């Protein structure tokens, strides 16, 4: 910068550095003060929102207090909320309790508590408090969608976060998984009749009907193969070219799906109408009888089917997360990180670039396929719209917001954004319209909002909300 005037971005960077130099207490006071300054005027518009932001400020202030007063304040907070919002009080109690555990226990307690809370979620959902601004907690149906999106984001994280390959067509894998389920468990190919472990349909029904439990791994493997097929010719390309090629594939496949109702006379995809209905997963009559009716025959006809879908999704997610952690720490995972950080150095160290990248692609595709296969069965449909390019960007923003390369970060980012997608944005829009007497329809602007989020994150916190330490070092070494 040869003496040129400071650009806005330079000024911002300088301001950031000055902020980091402030003593911790000053920073704390400033943040709490700022939140209070936001809370008070908003309190006049919506009292509960004002209280909510004030509570967040208080919580943030609390976290910096010394041990003894912190404990006292926390207990006071729990007691204070015990009457008006008992559920909030309970959540706070668990949260504070976990935070007080010693570090080596906390590492396991936090995911454990989160998982337990997620499993029990359908039971205490209706007892939860209402969040200011955002409204009710997400419904179980939304929960299923959220878990599926988290799964996809964790899968994409393997490609983008670990191996550093920007994939702008990830949705193709998801949709491919969805169509695999649609082909293997619907009336689409009514020329043939094959039932393998299918539940919830009559035996005379034509078409392929495999058990969803079989299809999910099959779809994963087929999608992984598709990923290899796409990857083999393209992975030689450098980063940005690869991104465009994946995007190209992501645009070709939906057109095939749309035009696939008549491929020289053969109906492959049923065109724009999509394939529907798709069989539901289930445990069949035998298991239903043995377990005394605990395991439903099929999820669709069961009264608590929603919850079963939710728990199945959670189960798949846990497997996905476990697999991704093991992958990251494996020889292959370390090779991915090496390639991401410096491709030439990695090649010089004897890492086979093509094979390693192809594996990244295949693994990412596998998880995309699994989530697509499950979600298609949940929605009971597969449409060409499943390939919509915005979904790719949507999942990419989850990974970027959460922190590329860090699974916990990606989970948080994905949960947040998919909640906003399903319910949050609509609720925020409703809140704005209610309190400011406007009539803005927020959801159509979703992609722009997500675009804004990824720009802001890339500019100001490229390592994401919960960064992986290694990735952060990489992103900051240039500047």
């Amino acid at each position, binding site marked *: 910068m040869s003496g040129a005037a400071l650009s806005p971005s330079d000024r911002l960077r300088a301001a950031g550095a000055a902020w980091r130099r402030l003593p911790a207490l000053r920073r704390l006071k400033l943040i709490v003060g700022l939140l209070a300054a936001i809370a008070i005027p908003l309190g006049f518009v919506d009292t509960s929102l004002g209280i909510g932001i004030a509570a967040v400020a208080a919580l943030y202030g609390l976290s910096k207090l010394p041990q003894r007063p912190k404990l006292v304040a926390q207990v006071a907070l729990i007691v204070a909320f015990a009457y008006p919002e008992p559920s909030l009080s309970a959540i706070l109690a668990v949260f504070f309790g976990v935070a007080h555990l010693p570090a080596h226990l906390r590492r396991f307690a936090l995911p454990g508590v989160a998982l337990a809370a997620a499993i029990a979620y359908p039971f205490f959902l209706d007892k939860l408090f209402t969040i200011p601004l955002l409204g009710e907690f997400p419904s179980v149906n939304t929960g299923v969608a959220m878990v599926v999106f988290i799964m996809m984001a964790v899968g994409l994280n393997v490609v983008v976060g670990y191996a550093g390959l920007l994939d702008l067509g990830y949705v193709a894998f998801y949709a491919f998984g969805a169509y695999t389920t649609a082909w293997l468990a619907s009336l689409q190919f009514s020329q043939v009749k094959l039932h393998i472990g299918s539940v919830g349909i009559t035996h005379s029904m034509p078409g392929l009907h495999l058990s969803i439990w079989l299809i999910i791994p099959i779809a994963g493997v087929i999608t992984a193969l598709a990923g290899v097929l796409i990857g083999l010719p393209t992975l030689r390309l*450098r980063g*940005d070219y690869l*991104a465009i090629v994946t995007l190209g594939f992501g645009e070709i496949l939906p057109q095939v799906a749309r035009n696939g109702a008549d491929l020289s006379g053969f109906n492959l995809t049923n065109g724009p109408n999509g394939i529907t209905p798709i069989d539901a997963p289930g445990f069949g009559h035998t298991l239903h009888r043995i377990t005394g009716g605990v395991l439903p025959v099929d999820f669709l006809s069961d009264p608590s089917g929603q919850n079963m879908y939710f728990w199945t999704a959670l189960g798949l997610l846990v497997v996905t997360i476990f697999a991704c952690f093991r992958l990251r720490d494996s020889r292959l995972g370390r090779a991915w990180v090496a390639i991401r950080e410096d491709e030439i150095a990695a090649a010089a160290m004897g890492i086979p670039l093509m094979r390693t990248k192809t594996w990244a692609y295949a693994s990412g595709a596998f998880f995309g396929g699994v989530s697509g296969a499950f979600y298609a069965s949940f929605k009971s449909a597969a449409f060409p719209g499943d390939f919509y390019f915005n979904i790719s960007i949507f999942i990419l*923003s989850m990974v970027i917001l959460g922190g590329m390369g860090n699974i916990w970060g990606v989970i948080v980012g994905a949960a947040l954004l998919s909640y906003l997608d399903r319910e949050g944005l609509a609720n925020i829009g409703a809140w704005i319209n209610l309190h400011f007497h406007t009539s803005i329809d927020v959801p159509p602007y979703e992609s*722009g909002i997500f675009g804004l989020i990824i*720009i802001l994150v*890339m500019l100001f916190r490229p390592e994401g909300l919960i960064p992986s330490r290694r990735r952060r070092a990489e992103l900051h070494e240039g500047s």
Partner: protein
Amino acid sequence: MSTDARSETVPRRLPRNLPGPTGIVGSLLVLLVVGWLLTNLAKTPGDFFQILLFGLSLGAVYALVALGYTLVYGILELINFAHGDVFMFGGTVSAVFILEVFQLGSHERWYVLWPSVAACVVIAMAVCGVLNALIEMVAYRPLRNAPRLAPLITAVGMSFILQDVVLGWRGPNYITVPSVLPRSDVFNVGSVEYRWDELIVLLVTVPLLLALVYLVQRTKQGKAMRATAQDREAAAMMGINVNRTISFTFLVAGALAGAGGLIYVLWQTQVRFDSGFRLGLISFTAAVLGGIGNLPGAVLGATVIGLIQAFNEGLSWSAPGGDWTQSIVFSILILILVFRPEGLLGEKTPEGQ
């Protein structure tokens, strides 16, 4: 070591006089397309030439957008993902000016029509040029030293923001303008009909292309652009203000996209918030086909892509039809990137490595 010295003189491999497998496959594909075109020419010569002329105009619009991709890629090695949306923004601004400021109808007198269109060209180019330069300042400049993928990601974000800005401004429906340009025939030979609006597209585009070539090849600013593209640091040491040169490049690219947007709206009479996304991708394909970073290449690639699209959608004998245009164009993109990443006119670059 004497053996080493000897191996210097003996070539390791025989010179490749024979085409490799990719070359054979590529030639076969090209032959297939040429055969298909010739068959169509023999069957319906009238249609063929009419579609050829249409394809040239289409290619001209693509060329304006493709040049923007190629200019920016040449100087920053960045795929400006938002470029297609800048084009769309230009189209929308022009449409709004045509409808609400100049209030043109479909049969305006020439002394009303041409000054208004000229004003629209200037306005669209100015708005889009400034917009593109602003995008660079906000979304790409702070990331100059970040990993390569960072600005690409912000570019994708910018593309979505632009779409939503237009969505919020003009709503989700097509903005339709009256067909301002004269649609009468330039000539009508046999069954080949050539209309004025198609010719006007070329008449606006070609001078712009010539002006761009002049700017890049003959002016001092153009020299600075070429120097920056070649080696940013060395250019800075020679006293070139690199940031200003990059901004200028974005300005020029945006102005071309704005002109493209206006012409597109005048010709196709409609534009919508998402019109730019697909057209941008197709134009990017054109830029890659010609060899990215190469200005004549972008024009050549755009012409080829325009012709391919026109032939595919217009010819009657075993053409896949408009439903498949996108697939065909992106297959070309993928094939080119995989087999000949340097494009038709580009030089060997390490892009493919």
